[in-house]
Every structure is written in structure tokens, then in C-alpha cells.
């Protein structure tokens, strides 16, 4: 096994890890803001991938150029889900935590069912894209171009989220996260902040969906595995920590790739699980968790 091959696999793993990190970013943002674990997160990734596929079929617009459009669509979907469902769960006085889990879980089943009904359960993919089939080569290391660009887009998403925290809205977000009740006294509309928080969280997963649609198959249950990895990423990085999601995503992507290379591709997730459980034994609240 040559050093170049190992480096190539490791780099590929880190790039995939950046995609995992973006999926986890949306989850951890919503959790950090309002303590809600969104079990429909994977289904929303799937929705973004189908949206990309349909727009591509209808207009021929390349997935990469669809980024702002699908992100906007998913933002609107996130706000709508907050208004229609999540705001109602916040009004619940008993078993609020369970109600939130099962409302988002029910939404997930509903969305997967809707996709199966509308598009069937066959695997689909988008061909003839700008990035498709191309590779990026450097010093004997060859990487698929869609993966490289996905990694770059993922870093840009994290940069945007970091810049967001410096804006007026970012400060309102932080204040609402600190104390849901007190912010009303200084004129912050809690419902509006939560709604936009959901919008940004689902827009992030939407961006991940567009990038994945460039090189990954599209099917109704495609989100399940990504969601599972996102929950592990969030728990590993620490619930509510954006930086934790980024670091944990990279660790998971790398672990997955190296387990597949050195042990067995069929067991690549076992590597992730072992690393996650080992870290949690030492740090019960993840690497950078505050909550």
C-alpha cells in the first residue's frame, strides 16, 4: 500500500467529513438554539437532493448553480416547519421533549413516504453535470472534483455561519439561546428568531444536499444514513457547538475512510462507532459540548 494511496484515501475521507460536518451544523444550530433534536434532518437532506434533481430535469440548470436557489427553498421549508409544527410543540406543557422527538420523527416518515409515492424507490442520479466525472490531481493524489468542490463549499458554509454570529441577528440568536424568556424584555421576538434559526439550519442541510446530488445516488431513504452520522457528529462534537461539529465531522470522515481501507469496507461504520464511544467515555458531553 503506497503512501500516495493512503494520503488519497485520507484526503477523500476528510472532504467527505466536511460534508458530514455541514449536515451536522444545521442539526446543532437548531439544537443549540432551542434544545430540539430534529429527527427529520435526514429527510430534509433527501428533499434537497430531489429538489436539485427536479430543477435539473426541468431547466437543465447545473446543480452547482442551483446552490442559492435550493438553499432558499430549504430556508422557506425550515421556517414553515417551525411555524406549522415546532412552534406548536413549544406550547406543550407535558412531555415536551418526547413530543418534539416524535413530531419530527413523524415528519421524517411522512416525507420519506411522500418521496416514495412521488418518485418511486429506485435510485436516481444526475448525469452530465459541470463537475461530474472530473478529477483533481496533485502529486499523484487523485480526487474526484465533485468531492473537492463539496469540501470547499462546506468550508464556505462554516465561514458564513461564523460571520453570521457577528451580525445583529447573530447576537439576537445568541441572546435567545442564552435565555428564551428574557429576550422578550429587550424587544427580541423569540418566535421570529426560532423561525429564522430553523430556516438557516435547514438551508445548511439543503446546501449539503445539492453538493451530494452531484455525486451521490438519490433515493427516498438516502437521508437515513447521513442523519445517523450527523447525530453521532453532533454528540461527538458536543450538542450545540458549531466548531465541535466541524472537528467531529472531519474525525468521522477520516475514520470512516481509513477503516474502509485498512479493515473492511463493509465495516467502515464500526470505526466511527468505536471512536465515538471511546471519546464519550472520556468526555460525556462531547469534545466541545457546553450543554
Amino acid at each position: 500500500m503506497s503512501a500516495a494511496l493512503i494520503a488519497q484515501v485520507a484526503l477523500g475521507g476528510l472532504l467527505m467529513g466536511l460534508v458530514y460536518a455541514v449536515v451536522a451544523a444545521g442539526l446543532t444550530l437548531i439544537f443549540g438554539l432551542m434544545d430540539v433534536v430534529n429527527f427529520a434532518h435526514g429527510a430534509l437532506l433527501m428533499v434537497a437532493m430531489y429538489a436539485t434533481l427536479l430543477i435539473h430535469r426541468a431547466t437543465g440548470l447545473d446543480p452547482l448553480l442551483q446552490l442559492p436557489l435550493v438553499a432558499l427553498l430549504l430556508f422557506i421549508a425550515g421556517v414553515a416547519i417551525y411555524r406549522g409544527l415546532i412552534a406548536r410543540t413549544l406550547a406543550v406543557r407535558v412531555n415536551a421533549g418526547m413530543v418534539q422527538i416524535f413530531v419530527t420523527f413523524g415528519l421524517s416518515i411522512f416525507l420519506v413516504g411522500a418521496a416514495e409515492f412521488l418518485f418511486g424507490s429506485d435510485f436516481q442520479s444526475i448525469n452530465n453535470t459541470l463537475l461530474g466525472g472530473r478529477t483533481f490531481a496533485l502529486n499523484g493524489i487523485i480526487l474526484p472534483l465533485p468531492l473537492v468542490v463539496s469540501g470547499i463549499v462546506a468550508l464556505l458554509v462554516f465561514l458564513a455561519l461564523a460571520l453570521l454570529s457577528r451580525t445583529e441577528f447573530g447576537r439576537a440568536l445568541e441572546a435567545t439561546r442564552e435565555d428564551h424568556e428574557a429576550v422578550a424584555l429587550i424587544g427580541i421576538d423569540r418566535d421570529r428568531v426560532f423561525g429564522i434559526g430553523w430556516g438557516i439550519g435547514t438551508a445548511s442541510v439543503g446546501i449539503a444536499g445539492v453538493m451530494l446530488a452531484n455525486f451521490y445516488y438519490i433515493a427516498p431513504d438516502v437521508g437515513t444514513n447521513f442523519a445517523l452520522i450527523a447525530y453521532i457528529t453532533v454528540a461527538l462534537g458536543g450538542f450545540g457547538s458549531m466548531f465541535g461539529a466541524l472537528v467531529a465531522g472531519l474525525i468521522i470522515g477520516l475514520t470512516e475512510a481509513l477503516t474502509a481501507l485498512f479493515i473492511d469496507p463493509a465495516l467502515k461504520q464500526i470505526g466511527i462507532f468505536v471512536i465515538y464511544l471511546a471519546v464519550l467515555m472520556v468526555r460525556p458531553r462531547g469534545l466541545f459540548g457546553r450543554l
Partner: protein
Amino acid sequence: MAGAVRGTLVARRRRELWLGIVVLVVLAALPFGVGNAYLRGLIVLTLLYAGLSQAWNILGGYCGQISLGHALYFGIGAYTSTLLFTRLGISPLLGMFAGGGLAGFAAFLVGLPCFRLSGHYYAIATLVIGMMAALLAANWDFINAAQGITIPFHGESWANLAFRTAILPFHYVMLAYAALIWFVAWLIEGSRWGFFWRAVKDDVAAARSLGVSIYPSKLAAAAISGAATGIGGALYAQYIGFIDPDSTLDLSLSVLIALPAVVGGIGTLWGPLLGAAVLIPVQQLSVAWLGSAAGGIDLMVYGALIMALALARPEGLVSFFHIRASRGATGHG
């Protein structure tokens, strides 16, 4: 004052037990009113899930530890009794208790590290351990990996707990199982342990200050819950006649075990049965009626039902009958 509280508590528990006996008698008579074989099978499955969900409820409801990995204990029960029968010829009547014991021990082992975690960290850790077991089982040749195991059939027999044509025996087997786990939950509600667990669920700090040892309490709840789930897994294996990692260890099964208790009323005696009586028929019938004609609609119906029930009845279906979750001293209203 304390005497009066004790008096109403004892009276309430006696009422629950009588109600339990009445429900048991009604359910025992039920097959004689239902001629349709498909509906009878549906009732058998509902009773199984009522028992499984009550088993989950012992840890998730009474002790407040939301496990998303109970399929692991179900799978251990199913595989243990099946392997004991196919490899050593030991009757599942004994095998199910071996499976239950092993599952309870596994739940204890999982609890050792996981009960150091709280809230979502605990839930995700149990989910990950469950997924890990499913993945390993699918690659473990000794237990036939992903191909699964077919249980050989040597004729209808109570000794081997094997019935292929008659549904009635399994109706009573599953009813006995659901009733047994219900009775365990009833015993726990009135026991010292039950009060400990509810105290742990309601307020960990307060429970600790009253001298409840949190960690051993959770481990005991996990072991009982895991063992009860394992017995259910063994019964499922006998009922279906075939097991593989997909049907006995998958994450979706972990959710399906928890869901009836949550929808019916978490931490209540009747929640799991009520939840199973609504969810299992809806799920099975929507697959049967809608699944083949237009794939996906069955899932849409099921998902919409879960959302609607969770929002409309956050206390669970038991609230239709004015039953509240029994709590420690912090009961609300």
C-alpha cells in the same frame, strides 16, 4: 395525612389490578369474536408490541432513560433461543428465558458506560450501540450473517412452541407475555424501586439528596427492561419462524418498540397497550391496503398519525381516560 395518601394509593393500585384482570379476560375471549385469520394475526402482533413497549417503558417511562437501542435486547433474545433450538435442540420454552437473561445482562453492560451520559447523549449512545450490533451481526458467519436463520418446523407442538397453521396458541402466548410484563410494571409501580426510579426521572438532584443511589437504580431498571424485551424477541422468532439482523436488530425496530409507550402514555401502566392497539393495526393495515397500490402512502399515513397524536395528546392516549402518569411527590395538577 400520610395515612390518607397511602390509603388512596393502595385503593388505586387495587383498582388497577382489577382493571388488569378484566382486560385480560376480555382479551382472552377476543379470538372467539374475531373469525378472520388476518385480524387474528394482527391482534397477536399488537399484543407482542404491547409487551415489548411495556418492557421499554420500565426503563424509558418509569426511570426516564430514553433508549433508542432496545432492538439489541430483542435481537439477543431472538438469536439466543433460536440458536439453542437449532444447534442444541433446547426447547424455546427454556430458550426464551436464556435469551431474556442474556438480554438483561447485555442491558446491564450497556448501562455501565451509558448511564454516565445524560439526555440526548444517552439516547444517541444507545442508538449507536444498537446499530453497531446490527452491523456486526450482519457480518458474523456463526449466526448466518445477513442470510438469517430459518427455524425448522417439526409439527405443531407446545413443547417446541411451534405453530404454523393455528393462530390461537400464539394469541395466548403473546397475551401471557403482555400480561406478565404489565404485572411486572404494576409491581414496580408499588415497590421501593418504582419510587426510586420515578424520583430519578423527576429530579436527579433531589433524588440524590434523599439518598437514592442513581446509578444502581438505572442499572436495575435497564436489566429488567432488557430481559423483558429479550423474552419478547424469542417469542417473535417462534411466531415468525425466521430471523435475520434486519428484522431483529434494526434501528427502526428500536423506534417501533418505544413508540407505543410514547403515543399511549409514557410512564403509565396502560399507555403501551393503548399505543400498540392504535399504532400496530394502523401501520399493518395501511401497508396491506395502501402499500402495494401506491408505495409511500402507507408511510405518509403513519407519519401523519404520529405527528397528530403527539401534538393532540402530549400526555398520551391514556389522557382520554383521565389517567395520568404516576409520579413521585412532584405530580402536577
